[in-house]
Structure formats: structure tokens, C-alpha cells
């Protein structure tokens, strides 16, 4: 007997939640308990009184599972609103990465050239290394990291995705 899996789609979910102790564990635990996937998860408080946080979750699953994820999140008591950015119209998503590259000679020059193409900034340097700061979509950062891997990538730190719907309205 073999276990079969269904085809998945990537979705970016944006949640506003009461900023209370344990909220992150509640949400992360819901994903593990019900077997949903988390590709990335970001959280930070977004109101002046620190009462509400925005959580952005990148997940993947068949459409029916995505519907369930939204419904399950929505019924958690401290969750104010769940928006599926992928379904709700045009939206902006960005991720920030710090990318450390070490090398000398031609590799070092190529790293700078590529950083320029990707509009990455140098935020730390030694004679033998750089740390680049890059923002963009997940795909752009994947591409940049992939290129650096060939010319001396040491390590990467990524924030995960944040996103907002385009236009003047709040979601």
C-alpha cells in the first residue's frame, strides 16, 4: 500500500490577529495538527496600541484544503480576519534576504555585478566577503541565491513573505 498526495497550489494568506500570548503557537499548531503546509510565516504587530498583529502565511495545498485552512483559521477566537491574497485580486508580496558571499578575484567582482542587476545593497563587507540585502518576490530571491551559490555563497537569512492587496482599500 502507498500513500498518495494531491496536487498543490501556492497561496499567500494575510491574517489580522489579537496580539496576545500564544497566538503564534495557536496558528502554527493548527497547521501541524491538521497536516497543512507552511512555506513561510511572518508576524509583527501593526497597530499603535500594539493590539493587533499581521501574520502572513505562505502555504500550499489543493483548493479544497486552502478553503479549509481559511475556515479553520477564521474560527480561532483571536483571529480578526483572514484574506487569501492569491484569490482576492492583485497584491504586492515582498521578502527580504541577507545573503553572505565570500570570495576573491573574478568571483567577487561577479557577485557585485549580479547584486547590481538584482538591485541588492551591500550592507557589510570585508576584503573577502559581502553581505547583500535584497528585497523582492520569493522567486527573485531564489534566483539571486541560486546565482550566488555558484560564486561563493556562505549563508542566507530570509524573512518570509509579507503582502498587501493593491489599491487604496484596507483588506
Amino acid at each position: 500500500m502507498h500513500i498518495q498526495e494531491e496536487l498543490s497550489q501556492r497561496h499567500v494568506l494575510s491574517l489580522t490577529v489579537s496580539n496576545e500570548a500564544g497566538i503564534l503557537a495557536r496558528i502554527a499548531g493548527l497547521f501541524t495538527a491538521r497536516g497543512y503546509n507552511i512555506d513561510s510565516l511572518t508576524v509583527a504587530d501593526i497597530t499603535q496600541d500594539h493590539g493587533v498583529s499581521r501574520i502572513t502565511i505562505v502555504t500550499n495545498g489543493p483548493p479544497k484544503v486552502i478553503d479549509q485552512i481559511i475556515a479553520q483559521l477564521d474560527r480561532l477566537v483571536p483571529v480578526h480576519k483572514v484574506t487569501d491574497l492569491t484569490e482576492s485580486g492583485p497584491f504586492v508580496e515582498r521578502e527580504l534576504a541577507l545573503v553572505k558571499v565570500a570570495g576573491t578575484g573574478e568571483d567577487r567582482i561577479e557577485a557585485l555585478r549580479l547584486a547590481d542587476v538584482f538591485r541588492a545593497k551591500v550592507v557589510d563587507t570585508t576584503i573577502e566577503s559581502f553581505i547583500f540585502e535584497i528585497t523582492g518576490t520569493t522567486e527573485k530571491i531564489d534566483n539571486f541565491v541560486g546565482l550566488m551559490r555558484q560564486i561563493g555563497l556562505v549563508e542566507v537569512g530570509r524573512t518570509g513573505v509579507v503582502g498587501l492587496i493593491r489599491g487604496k482599500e484596507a483588506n
Partner: protein
Amino acid sequence: MAEKSGADILVQCLVDLGVEVVFGYPGGAVLPIYDALYNHPTIRHVLVRHEQGATHMAEGYARSTGKPGVVLVTSGPGATNAVTGITDALMDSIPMIVITGQVPTQLIGTDAFQEADTIGITRHCTKHNYLVKDPGKLAGIIHEAFHIATTGRPGPVVIDIPKNVQIATAPYARPEFKVHASYHPQTRADAATIDAAVEMLAAAERPVFYTGGGVINSGPQASALLRELAALTGAPVTSTLMGLGAFPASSDQWLGMLGMHGTYEANWAMNQADLILCVGARFDDRVTGRLDAFAPNSKKIHIDIDRSSINKIVDVDVAIVADVASALDDIIALWKQRDHRHADLAEWWARIAGWRAKKSLDYAENGVEIMPQRAIADLYKACNATGKDVIITTEVGQHQMWAAQHFGFEAPNKWLTSGGLGTMGYGFPAAIGAQMGNPDSVTICIAGDASIQMNIQEMGTASQYRLPVKIFILNNEYMGMVRQWQELTYESRYSNSYSDSLPDFVKLGEAYGWTGIRIEGPQELEAGIRQMLDTDGPVIVDCRVAKLSNCFPMIPSGAAHTDMLLDPNQIAGVMSDEAKALV
């Protein structure tokens, strides 16, 4: 504003919220609360023998009265012992408040004596939970917790209170109700969904109502409205295990329970229907059987207060997110306003009559052994004859299914069973809780010889509070349902399903000051049951039944409704790994 200690604030809130009974067990981390309850004039504390018992008592109390059940336990083992009952309440949507003591705030996280991460442990088996670190916030949280536990889809809420928060003082004023920042369950349906449902119901030629525990949770009004809508539409009605009693078993329109051990007519009606109205049920695997063969040619309307139940397992055509009573009320009003008459259902009822003629609940008797089905049927007859209000609880297993099949329920809140979690050990404490809430009712726990032992220590609780509960054990000396599955799936290799070293239940009863009765053969059955019902105090009945009886009809795991087994002779060979892997 007057200052009160956290413990006094808690007790004041319980009084203000109308709490009359608390099921609990003291310990170091709740001593201040127990002191505040000492000789309390209105709140009655029921001292249990094990914290799991307290949670099931609270469930039984809640399910039979419609009021939330309240549990009070200490930190660490007190809280962890309560986890099974909390999970049970979550699965069956029972309103319950569990107050747990916690080590003082300065000791949290230090592996202190009797410390457990109660909030972490119960996060996913509660509707919501709270750790209260400030006595000033306690009153607001307790009122909010009751609101959350009892509204929307009901469920258990845990409030974890460190010991120093119980002792520290804060200004107290009774909290006013305020709209919650994020918790707003939808209880009224969108008009468009009601409109669609009414038109589909009016046009249906082969409708069936598939009802569940949500009808009971919605209150007695929902059961009354269900009966009215069934009369208006002429549709047959079936129910899940949890929904029994919402529709009267004596009605001509009643098909019996559906699902794995449901009747032939209920499951075939589901399979052949052109419209299924699902009312407060959730398409559980025990109901649907093989999903791709479930009700293949029907449109489906689903009424549920929890949006996450919609399209979770079965895709539906119309989703009505609302409280059952409110949705049924809207449907009935629109049906009447449009002056609908139901379609001619004569042909549909004729087909149902054909399925009924299979008499799927019949069983053979040999005159020597008591068939368990007979024991239930006779119990039902004898209960009816008393003319008293009867509440039935069950443990989990074959006896539970036989009770569901052979005991007829006419009213809601009279049938208490663990459906979702399937918790052995539920029924007896639930009976104690139900008896506390319904002192004038006859409360009977139908049990198996294995299940009853899971919380048998609560016999002492019933004795202490003079609760005249009855335990009716169908004793076949097996974990019958396990044995049945081993017979069906594992060529009768009865691995660890024999109940060895059973106690003498009659003597055990006597040891607790109960009346013990043994029924050993068919000729003793009627008199034994009558003696149980005629005895004023608590009674334990050891009813020896046929040891190897199996529960039929049965839809094997992963099979379609139409592949139902009606008797043991239909069992064929060895199961595939795919079938074995299903629960």
C-alpha cells in the same frame, strides 16, 4: 470599588453566571478557590474520584440540561487527567468551562511541583483557553469564556489560574457585556441560501433529512422546528448517533440512525436520494462510508453553524451557515409564505418500505443466551412503562451501537454518548452529571464490561451524593467491538480483546453501598430490569449476554452504503491493506 481576591472574584463570577454545580477535585494549586467555595450557599461542588470523571460529568450535565458544565481541577496531573474529557467536549461540541489551578506565576517555566503547560497541552483540544496572570482581568475573562463556550458552535474553554493570582486582590465590579474584538459566530443565514434551500426542498422527489447533534445543541426549539419542517415536506428523517432524539423514533417518517451501524433503509435512502438536507451534522467518516460512493446522485444542502464544517469532507450545493433553529425557522417561514406543497413522494416512500422490509435490525435468538439487542429492547420497553423521564448514557463499543439501534428516543437531551472522540469511560460519569442536573429523571448508563471499568471509581461519587444512577452492563466478557473487528479483519485472532479477571460487579456494587443485580438468562431479564427500575438508590446490573454477538448491520470501513453487511454470513475472506488502514 471593593477589592476581592482572585478566588473570590472567580466564585462571584460563577454565581453571576448562574452556575449551580461544579465538578472537581482539590489540590495544592486550587486551595484558595476551594476555600472560597467552602460552605457556599448556592454553588454545589461534586467531589469526583478522578478528574476525567469530572469532565464527563460536566458533559453529561451540559448535554442533558443545555447549560454549560463547569469543572475545577488542580494544576499538573489534575489538568492532564482532564484532557480526555476536554477533547471529548470539543469533538461533540459540548459547552464546558474547565478551571485549572496553576503554579504561581513566578514559578511558571521552572518545572515546579505539579507544573504542567496546561495552556500548551489544551490549546488544540479547546475552543479557546486562557492563562490569567492578573486578578484584575479575571472577571472579564471568565464572562468571556462562558460566552465563547456557549455560543456559536459550543465547546470547552480552559481558564488556567496561577495560585498567586487566586490570592492577590483586585478591584471588582461585575463585568458588562462587551462585543468581542474578533469572535462573532454567524447565527443568521444569508437570505439567498434560505431561498435556494426552500426551492430545492419543494422540487425534491426523493428528499431525505440527515440530522445531527447540532439540532440538539441548538436547543429544544430546533427539534420542534425540525418536526414541523419534516411534516411540511413529508421527507424521511435519519440521524447521526449524536442527533438521536431530535426527531421522534415513533414517527412514520423516522428511518433510524444512518452510517456504519445504521439501518438498511436509512443508508439506502441516503444513497438513492435526489436531495439531502443535512441539519447540524458534519459528514463524519462513520456516516459517509466510502466517499466517492456517498449519496452520488443527490443535491446537498448543509446547515451548520461552523463554516469550517462546510465542504470539509463532502462538497455541498447550498451552504447555510447559521444556528439550526434560526435556519429552520427561516426555511419554514419562506415555505409557508410561498405556499409550497411537497411533491408526490408516494413512489419514494414505496421504495423506502421495500428497504424497511429487510428488517435490518432483526436478530436471531436461541432461548438459552440473552441477545444483547433483546436486553436493550426490553430495557426500552420497561423504561417506557415507568412513565418517567428517562436519560440514557452509554460508554463506547457494541453496547453503544445496540443502544442507538434498539432504544427509541422521542425527545432531545435524553441520549448522551461520546460520538466524535469515542471515549470509553464517558457514559458512567456522564450519567452522574445528568442525574445532578435532572434529579427527578431515571438516569441509566448502558455499558460494556470493558468500558465501565475505565471510570468505575466514580461509583463512590454517586454514593456520596445519593445519586440513584443505574448502570446496565451488557457483559460479554470481551471488548466486543474490538473483537468484532478482529473477527472481520484479522481472521478471529483475538489479540488482547478478552476481558480477563473481570470483577464481580454485584459485589463491587455492594462494596460501594449500591444494589447489585445479576441477570444470567432470558428468563431473568424482565424481572432484573424491573428490579433495577424499582430500586430507589444506585444500581449496577451485570447482564450476561451472548458472548460472540456482533453488531449488524455494518458498513465495513471504506465501503459504500450499498455494500452493507446485514448478518455474519456475509463476511468474505481477508481485507485488503487499504481497507485495514481505515479506522
